[in-house]
């Protein structure tokens, strides 16, 4: 006897046969390899039995040669269940809805956890995340990928040195490493102040220590400016020398600037296309037009869809076309020289500390060659030239 489960799986039909010689019909079935079971006789001419769904056609052929009439009175098994389910729209709709809901929910952000940040920093991160559209209930494929989030966060919040961004299921984890905020100056050991470079001293503010030079003195690199050893001879004391010694220093810089230059710049106009990608096939979802820009850059962002906890081989793809334009810049000789000087000045300012100022500049040399200008400049800068030098005990 075959397994009952098999019959349930492939589906079975209950047949009622009516007429003379039902036994002959049963024999004919058996001889034709039609499996029958649960044969019951209800009266002299009526018999019911079960056959497999796949045998119904053959039973009809067999029955045509007998004197019996067939009635199909019941059906059970998986194929019928499916049929019934399909005809029941509500049920089917429910199943579809279930999958849609699970799909949507698996693609949402359900939790954001920030670890290792101080409350203020955490608050700023929350605000920044909100600005980027990352919050509970947002779709995962619409927000940036972790690397971009990481980059944006570290760029926008100066209090963090590094932030680790990681997906774990539907939760986004941030591990933050904060910058050490400058704390109160540590106790400085005894130190001298020495010159950082060659200069002429213009101004001195000594908080502590014994100044050894005065204004208008010419100092060389490494020369002792303020001594950390104070007191009369024999009663000396070591102190950390502190103060600012401003001196005039000199810088030389050379700038080369071409007269003509072309740049590719983004005009700020862009358009987006959205695709759903399966393997190599892209199905456009939104944005069917061709980009109407003549020159553009293409930026593709690809994010997988998820179901439950798995990444599907299904991607959401956002293609951004940004319009670019070529900008030509050309200077006259005078403009080029002026621009070169400006550039040099800015470059120098960036290098100098905040308390430094440029006192004067002098053009040493300026030439035109092959469509370029070469300018050599000399700057006089007032800056703090004192740097500490610890006094090693036992010297």
């Amino acid at each position: 006897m075959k397994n009952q489960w098999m019959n349930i799986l492939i589906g079975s039909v209950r047949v009622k046969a009516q007429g003379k010689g039902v036994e002959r019909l049963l024999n004919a079935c058996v001889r034709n390899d039609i499996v029958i079971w649960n044969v019951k006789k209800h009266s002299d001419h009526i018999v019911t039995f079960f056959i497999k769904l796949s045998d119904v056609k053959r039973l009809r052929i067999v029955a045509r040669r007998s004197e019996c009439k067939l009635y199909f009175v019941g059906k059970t098994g998986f194929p019928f269940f499916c049929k019934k389910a399909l005809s029941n729209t509500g049920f089917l709709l429910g199943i579809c809805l279930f999958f849609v809901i699970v799909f949507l929910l698996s693609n949402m952000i359900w939790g954001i956890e920030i670890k290792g940040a101080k409350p203020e920093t955490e608050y700023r991160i929350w605000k920044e995340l909100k600005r980027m559209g990352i919050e509970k209930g947002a779709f995962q494929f619409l927000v940036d990928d972790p690397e971009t989030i990481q980059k944006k966060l570290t760029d926008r919040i100066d209090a963090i040195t590094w932030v680790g961004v990681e997906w774990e299921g539907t939760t986004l984890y941030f591990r933050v490493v904060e910058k050490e905020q400058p704390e109160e100056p540590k106790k400085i050991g005894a130190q001298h102040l020495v010159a950082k470079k060659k200069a002429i001293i213009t101004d001195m503010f000594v908080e502590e220590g014994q100044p050894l030079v005065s204004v208008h003195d010419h100092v060389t690199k490494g020369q002792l400016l303020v001594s950390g050893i104070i007191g009369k001879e024999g009663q000396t004391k070591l102190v950390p020398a502190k103060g600012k010694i401003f001196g005039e220093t000199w810088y030389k810089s050379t700038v080369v600037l071409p007269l003509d230059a072309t740049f590719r710049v983004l005009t700020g106009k862009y358009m987006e296309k959205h695709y759903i990608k399966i393997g190599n096939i892209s199905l456009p979802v939104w944005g069917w037009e061709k980009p109407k820009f003549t020159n553009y850059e293409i930026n593709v962002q690809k994010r997988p869809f998820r179901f439950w906890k798995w990444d599907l081989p299904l991607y959401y793809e956002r293609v951004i076309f940004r319009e670019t334009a070529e900008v030509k810049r050309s200077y006259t000789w005078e403009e080029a020289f002026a621009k070169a000087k400006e550039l040099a000045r800015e470059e120098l300012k960036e290098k100098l500390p905040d308390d430094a100022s440029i006192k004067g500049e002098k053009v040493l040399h300026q030439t035109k060659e092959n469509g370029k200008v070469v300018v050599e400049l000399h700057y006089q800068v007032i800056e703090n030239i004192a740097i500490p030098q610890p006094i090693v005990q036992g010297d």
Partner: protein
Amino acid sequence: MVKKWRQKMKRWITDKLELPADIVMDLPRITMVGQIHIYIENHRGLLTFSDKELRLLLKQGQLLVRGEKFVIKTILPEEILLEGKINQVIYIDE
């Protein structure tokens, strides 16, 4: 006459060679579990069937099973499994 002689011959051979009788002589093999199941192998077809009686064709003669609430659980070309309450199993010679 020849048929009977052949039958005797077969019985003698099975006796002497200790061969299983149901195979050599095409006899039915009947297995019963109490009164509730009867399993008959080597039958030659269904003659009559009702909830009180089952008549099977054998190679020689017929087999009559009487009882109540009969249901044929399985029927295959040479096997049949009957369920119900079995009261009698009768061989009918022709």
